[in-house]
Structures are given as C-alpha cells and as structure tokens.
C-alpha cells in the first residue's frame, strides 16, 4: 500500500486493546529501522529499564516490502535486556509480507498480558488468547500448537519464544516461522517480559498496483538479476556455510573460544560437507526467490530394532561457527544437534556458542567448577554441550542464570574477562582483524551486519585509521538505507541507490526517490541518537584481551592500530549520536 504516512498498529497487552495510528515522517525516516527508531522516540522510555511493561516492542517494514524481490525482512526494535539500551534485530520468514498484507507499516506492542498469551493481528484481525498451557514449551512444539489455534496457513507469520525468552535470558531470540529469527540482543526476553508467548501476523489483504508497465518491467529485471546472474549463487548454493572452509584456510575462523583461528581437521563441518552429507533442501523467505535457507537433518536411534527419528535443522555459517568451531565440535551431525537444541530453547545461537566457549575455558582454568557448570564442559564434547544449552535456556542454577545474562556478566563474578569473546555481545564468526573487531565492538547492532569490517580487513593491508573509519561510517549509512526499505542485506550488491530510486519511483514513491541520501543520514543519526539516549557511550567500549592475542593470516593483531581505530570510531559514533540541536 503506497501512502505518504505510516500506518501503525498499536497494541496494549495490559488492556487487551489495539488502535490504528497514522504518523508522518515517511520522507525523513522512510521505514524499517528509521521508522522503528522514530516510533521508539514516541513510545519508548529512555530512562526506564528494558522490562518496564510500558516499553515498546516494535516491528517495522519498509516502502518496498513485498513490491520487489528480497524486500523481505522486518526490523524488530526494543530496549535490550543485554545492555539495557536501544537495539535492533532483523528477520525474514513470512513476517515482512504478513505485515504488508496485514496492512501495517509497523506494529508496536506495549504493556504486559495478565497471563501467558498469544496475540493475533492482521488487517481484519485482533485477538489476544490465553496460552498459559504453553509455559515452558520449546519454540518448535509451541509453533505447532499455535498453528492449530490460529488459522491462515500460507498467509501468516508465526513468531514465538522458547523457555529462554520466558526466563528472560538476555540473548533469547524470537523464532520466526521455524527457520528464521530475531536472534540477537534478546528480543525473545522482551516478549517473555510481556507475557507474550506467540505473535501471529495475518496477511489477509491485497492492494491495487500502480497502472502502467514500469513496475512489472522493473520487477522482472530485478528478478532476473537475482536469479540468473552469479551475484546470488553463493547464497543459494553452499550458502553462507561456504565460509567455514574459506575462513579456516584464511586463518580467520574462531576455534575453541578463539584460542586458534585455524584447525587442520575442519573437513567435517565445511559447507561442502554439510551440503553433500546433511542438506535436505533449501527454503526461502516469502518474497525471495534466492532460497538461502539450508535445512539439514539429524537422525537418532531412539529404540533398538532400528527405530529412528529425524529432525530438520536449518544451518548457516554463523551457526556452524558458534556451536561448531567455537566449541571445537567437528562433526556435522553433532553441530546440527546443538543447533537443534538451541532452537528448541529459543536462544540466540551465536551468544550461546560464545558463552559456552567461555565457560569451557573458565572450567579448564579453574575459575568455575563442575558444581557450577553441572556438566564437564569440554571442547568437542557435543553431548555435554546439549545438556548445557538446556541448562542455559531453563536457567537451571545460579551459574547458568548469570551466564544467560551475557558472558561478561558471568566473567564479572568469576573472572576470565580477558578471554570473553565479547564485542558488544558474543562475537560473530570473523577473526579477520582489527577493523572487524572494532566494527563489531562499537557498531550499532554489535554485529557483522552493521558494516563490512570483515571484508575491509581482507582487502586492505595498509593501516590507515581515517580511511577505515570513514569506510565503517559510510558503509553503515548505506546499509541503514537498505534496512529502511527493508531489504535482505544479501541483495546489497544488486540494490544500488540508483536501483532503489527507480524502484521507489515505479511504485509511486517518487518523492522518496530523490531523498535517499538525506534519509540515510537521518536514519543513521536517529538510530545512534536513540542508542546514546538510552545510555551508550562508545568511548567506554573495551575490546577484551583475547582479541589482541589473535593471529590471522596477516600475523598477530596490532594492538596499537586497533586502539587507534577504537578511539577514532568511538568519536565518530558519538558525533552521529549527539543531541539533535548539538550544533
């Protein structure tokens, strides 16, 4: 639906009510991440804790959602339980198209339900139902119950949390349509704090398209580029899992809590091995013909006389790194079993892997005991890690409760902060060097997605602080624009600013087409300003010692260079996040 304003669905779980609001700002903040930050300014409370019932949980899509291929993601924004500051997480599945066809640019959920509840919203739907009987349920079987409770197969998105979200683990995720996630920074705990076990978004409307041939012709050309050229092959074929072997060879794959960056025996978990031995099929987000979701399987003998069960498990590079190499697990079945357990608990896989890797080293070094870890954590021991993941998700004892608040929280009590692989949150799987460590450590989402720092490390041998920081700031700005549309970042090589302008023009957003640069700047500044208002000080970010000990293909990390990058990038971030009238 083309409109010059935003249509916002505002739900109050405490009252069991909803309202439809109209808001301006389209030509300033576009949608997606820009819209979410704008709505946090209106509905969020910078001075109240993340779990205050009145804090909003925001979902937002963009002006091109559903209109073009790979415009298929949703931005989720909230005050994070991880750092109690403003945060974003992005996911696809059917969520974005369900919101488009549910006739909402954003969904804002406030309040706290009296009992554990499931919410259904859509263009003609609003329903809040008691689901107390799902308390403690894993995220996958919860989905099966919700599917039967709320009709709409093929035109709905189902978001739900596992035990980790109910227990307010700081890195609990929201599972989206089984195979996708709002993974990082604890959106699942925000749902848990709101007593919201599941959210069904029903996309049951359609909208007239603009007259003329420009739109369908442009769609066809974009679709052709995305499906018949080599640009997207790496995502469709091996998928991101192809990075496992490549980064291991490059000496940039974190192994055993980043004690090494290479292992000669990585063959069991490479993308090639996963594809050849474990891949069942590909799947896609709605509106994306690429199909980057790779679904493998685990098979278990549950009884004698050849009685087996199997489960389907989605895998990606980040998952293989997090519960594979980071935990010293080298068998693909073992890695998939761990991913499956993480999925059931509703945890973020990267933080889970990072936290357990730290706990393993802490146990090795005698900082914690088996009385605390309950199981003898050891690199490579998948069966033990499966049990530990359940302990994390279910907060089985004080140690796991603390560890589920973040690795540095546990290290603050037990020591071991030097080897906590935390860059704002547990690291992403790129031990590429100084620029990436700085980018993730300080970046908005503390993620490999804010900017291409990992690629910069690989392309630049020289140490030029200003150039590197300029790159991080400019790359983040261009990605902020894509995340306002809201595009999958895999399409960033296709959706140039020119193409975005053409796409906006073709569907009737000609007024936005000429304002891309100013909108990108607005969004970048507003996101940072919101983050800073909620307590962020980039200058205080500390990059743990373990990252200064890393040896990549370039040799040991240069501590002085990384420190210079950290200081320079922190200054730039704080300037971007300065109050609006600071000039």
């Amino acid at each position, binding site marked *: 639906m083309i409109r010059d304003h935003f249509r916002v669905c505002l739900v109050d779980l405490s009252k069991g009510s909803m309202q439809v609001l109209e808001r301006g700002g389209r030509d300033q903040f576009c949608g997606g991440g820009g819209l979410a930050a704008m709505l946090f300014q209106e509905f969020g409370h910078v001075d109240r804790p993340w779990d205050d019932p009145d804090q909003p949980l925001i979902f937002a899509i963009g002006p091109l959602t*559903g209109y073009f291929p790979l415009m298929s993601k949703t931005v989720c924004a909230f005050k994070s339980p991880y750092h109690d500051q403003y945060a974003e997480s992005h996911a696809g599945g059917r969520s974005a198209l369900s919101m488009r066809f549910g006739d909402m640019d954003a969904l804002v959920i406030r309040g706290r339900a009296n009992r554990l509840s499931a919410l259904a919203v859509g263009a003609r739907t609003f329903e809040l139902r008691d689901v107390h009987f799902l308390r403690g349920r894993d995220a996958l079987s919860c*989905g*099966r119950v919700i599917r039967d409770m709320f009709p709409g197969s*093929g035109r709905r998105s189902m978001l739900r949390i596992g035990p980790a979200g109910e227990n307010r683990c700081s890195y609990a995720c929201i599972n989206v349509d089984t195979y996708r996630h709002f993974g990082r920074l604890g959106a699942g705990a925000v749902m848990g704090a709101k007593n919201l076990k599941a959210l069904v978004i029903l996309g049951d409307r359609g909208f*007239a*398209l603009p007259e003329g041939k420009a739109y369908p012709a442009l769609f066809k050309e974009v679709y052709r580029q995305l499906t018949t050229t080599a640009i997207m092959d790496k995502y469709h074929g091996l998928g991101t899992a192809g990075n496992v072997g490549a980064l291991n060879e490059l000496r940039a794959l974190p192994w055993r809590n980043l004690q090494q960056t290479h292992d000669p025996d990585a063959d069991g978990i490479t993308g090639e091995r996963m594809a050849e031995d474990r891949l069942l099929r590909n799947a896609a987000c709605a509106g*994306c*013909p690429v199909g980057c979701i790779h679904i493998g399987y685990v098979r278990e003998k549950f009884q004698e006389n050849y009685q087996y069960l199997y489960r*389907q498990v989605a895998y990606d590079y980040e998952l293989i790194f997090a519960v594979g190499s980071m935990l010293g697990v080298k068998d693909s079945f073992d890695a998939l079993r761990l991913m499956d357990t993480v999925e059931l608990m509703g945890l973020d896989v990267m933080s889970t892997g990072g936290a357990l890797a730290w706990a393993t080293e802490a146990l090795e070094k005698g900082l914690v005991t088996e009385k605390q870890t309950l199981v003898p954590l050891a690199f490579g021991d998948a069966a033990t890690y499966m049990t530990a993941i359940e302990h994390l998700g279910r907060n089985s004892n004080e140690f796991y409760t603390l560890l589920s608040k973040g690795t540095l929280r546990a290290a603050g009590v037990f020591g071991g902060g030097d080897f906590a692989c935390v860059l704002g949150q547990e690291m992403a799987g790129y031990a590429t060097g100084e620029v990436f460590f700085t980018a993730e450590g300080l970046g908005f989402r503390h993620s490999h997605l804010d900017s291409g720092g990992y690629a910069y490390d690989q392309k630049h041998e020289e140490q030029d602080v200003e150039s590197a920081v300029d790159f991080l700031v400019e790359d983040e700005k261009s990605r902020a624009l894509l995340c306002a549309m809201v595009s999958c970042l895999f399409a960033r090589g296709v959706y140039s600013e020119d193409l975005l302008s053409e796409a906006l023009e073709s569907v009737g957003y000609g007024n936005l087409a000429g304002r891309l640069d100013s909108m990108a700047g607005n969004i970048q500044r507003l996101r940072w300003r919101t983050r800073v208002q909620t307590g962020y000080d980039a200058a205080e970010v500390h990059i743990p010692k373990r990252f200064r000990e890393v040896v990549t293909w370039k040799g040991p990390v240069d501590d002085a260079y990384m420190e210079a990058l950290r200081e320079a990038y922190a200054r730039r971030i704080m300037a971007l996040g300065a109050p609006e009238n600071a000039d």
Partner: protein
Amino acid sequence: MKKLTAARMERCIGCHSCSLACARLVHRQLSWNKAGIRIRSAGGLSTGFQARLCLACNPAPCAEACPSGALSQRRDGGVIQKRKLCIRCGKCAEACPVDAVFLDHEVNPYLCIHCGRCVEFCPHDCLELVEIIPEIVPASQEDAS
C-alpha cells in the same frame, strides 16, 4: 489447450514468487492471496509446501455452480472467467473440491486461468504449462453410469 500444473512441488522453497507474479501480472494486485495459485505449507514449514490451484476439471464444478455465467467451461478443462458478470455469491468456491478458488473479503473469486505467466517466476522450475490430454471415457463405463 494447456493447463498449469504444479508438477514438482517437492522442489518448492516457499518463496511465493508464483502467487505474487499472478497477482501482479494477471490481477494487477500486490497480494499472495488474490492469485490463481497460492502456496501453503503441507502442515508446518518442516513438511514442505503445496500449491492450491485449479486442476482443470472437465466438467468443472465451479462453472456448474456459477449462476451468472461469470465462470464457464473451458473446452478441455478449467474455466473461462468473465469478472464483469460475477455477482459475488461465492458458490464457485463452495463447489471447488480442492479449495482452488480464493474469495477476497468482497467475495471476488480468484482462480487459475491457466495462462502460465507465473511459470517463469518459479526459481526451482516447480511449475509447468502442459498440453491437456482429453480424457477418453470407454463406452462401457459410460453405459455403466
């Protein structure tokens, strides 16, 4: 005369490109419902996908149920749709044995007209436009009925 078949749905990745293409090119809509082909999971996303589309019945129960002539029998199977004649009674959807007719909230029916415009937008070649082979009913069976 040809008909659209979802011949290789085990390849489907659930991208909805076919539905979106039909809505966009045939009905001038942005929708995954207002289309002659619609994709849904076969009972949860872990079970794969199935397509809802007209199976080109001959005789077509939806055409037989249509009181206004908006739907009429297509020669070798399926129906010809004349939207202007539709009175939006919804009888076609009720009559369809495979739930291939989608009714929007104004009771406008959307169903496959076997034009094949969706085929090129399937990235995994699940769909195919095939020649309808007219069914030859043996005389003995006709007698028996």
